[in-house]
């Protein structure tokens, strides 16, 4: 079963920008999948279409076999989204934000409250639970968004740059937490600009550039695209970084 199946997806914004020019990709159930690409490549657009926040221009998308046009409610019920931009009302308390999110998925409060408390504790927000969202630091806001995305126990979690602005230690604990969830069968789609992070975590990768998939495959296959030679200029990042630059650089 494919957690996400995207076929020939196109998106042209009203402004005329062609953000996606026929993208196809498959994410198998249980996979940890990294979607990588430079700024403006179309990652957030792709995620927006899959989660119902952006209308597509052409192509098809299905989530666990549910077509997003024909069965939008079933498709959405499978998904949890941690968006790139902060999108919660900062005047509300983290506890309420997470409990209400469960409500939108049809989960009654009696069930949602213990789950929300547990998630917020697990993500280190136990003490901030009942304070206004305004009092959260940047990293705490991200973690709140993760708790919110998990409260309905989705089978498929999409994270759009969740670690931007999160310190090293927290980032590690965040990944440990997510690894635990993937061990329990959760499928993850991650976008990040920290390529070492992707290299360590993901088992499959797609590199998207200017609205087109430049490469797609298992992490080993992608890494093997680079011959291992030292780059000319002194600086050298991980191997994935070299492949990424080779595929997306204009030079």
């Amino acid at each position, binding site marked *: 079963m494919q957690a996400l199946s995207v076929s020939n997806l196109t998106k042209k914004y009203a402004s005329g920008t062609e953000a996606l020019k026929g993208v196809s990709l498959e994410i198998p159930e249980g996979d940890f999948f990294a979607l990588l690409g430079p700024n403006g490549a179309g990652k957030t657009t792709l995620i927006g279409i899959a989660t119902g*926040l952006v209308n597509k221009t052409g192509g098809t998308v299905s989530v666990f076999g549910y077509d997003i046009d024909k069965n939008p409610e079933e498709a959405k019920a499978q998904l949890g989204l941690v968006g790139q931009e902060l999108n919660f009302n900062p005047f509300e308390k983290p506890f309420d934000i997470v409990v209400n999110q469960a409500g*939108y998925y049809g989960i009654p409060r009696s069930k949602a409250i213990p789950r929300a408390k547990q998630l917020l504790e697990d993500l280190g927000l136990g003490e901030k639970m009942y304070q206004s969202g305004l009092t959260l630091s940047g990293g705490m806001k991200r973690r709140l968004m993760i708790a919110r995305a998990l409260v309905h126990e989705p089978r498929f979690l999409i994270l759009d740059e969740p670690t931007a602005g999160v310190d090293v230690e927290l980032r590690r604990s965040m990944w440990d937490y997510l690894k635990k969830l993937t061990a329990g069968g959760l499928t993850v789609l991650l976008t990040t600009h920290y390529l070492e992070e992707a290299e360590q975590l993901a088992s499959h990768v797609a590199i998207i550039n200017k609205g087109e998939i430049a490469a797609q495959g298992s992490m080993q296959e992608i890494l093997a695209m680079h011959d291992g030679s030292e780059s000319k200029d002194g600086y050298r990042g991980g191997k994935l970084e070299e492949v990424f630059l080779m595929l997306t650089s204009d030079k």
Partner: protein
Amino acid sequence: MNNYRRWISFYTMVRRDVVRMFRIWVQTFLPSVVTSVLYFLVFGTVLGSRIGDMQGVPYMTFVVPGLVMLSIVTTSYSNTSFTFFSSKFFARSIDEILVSPTPPWVMIAGFIGGGLIRGLLTGAIVLLVSVFFTELSLSVHSALIILGFALLTCLVFALAGLVNGIYAKSIDGINLVPTFVLTPLVYLGGVFYSVHSLPAWWQAITYANPLFYLINGFRYGFLGTADVSLWISVAILGTMIVVLVSINWYLIRKGLGLRQ
């Protein structure tokens, strides 16, 4: 999503909005109390005694239904226009609902539900305030008609406010209509006078004002007398609901201007 889950989602939206309006009651409920106290003082107590009777009842008793209506109309309208607009504009918290399996019509119902409750509560508060000013001599002809008109009026203006919230591109876009359209329509719709005390040409204009029929029907519930037949009022209210539901339905299908 089965109906039980839809109901939970709807309940969540309404509950969230009600919690919000009580948390900021100074901004949501107090203004209506303050303005209605002022109206009752000025028009009821000070001027009312000089005006004497209107439609055969003391002026104060005549004015109460109109003032309750004024608060109902403006609060139910501004509640939906503001909550919808702010959730799409500030912090985009509407994404929380958009990513969920909540169907668009349940989302609409959720926003309307909040407006309905705020409108009815505010109307009840203003009515309570009026009781003090009329020395408990408030006449009630038919509680059912009063409640029915209050409910349907809330529905109409919550729906209208939602249309405004959907189209608004800036915060000014939701403040303009209440100030320049709603308030004048309510004032000129016979809150303060019986239409029969107007010159013929002004009467004719008043008959083109939909708010006139709502106030007329609502007042009938209190006084048992009306400027025009109750059935005309009901028909106008029904027409407005049908038109507004159709507009909202059309906007839902278009994606409510929420998706790029």
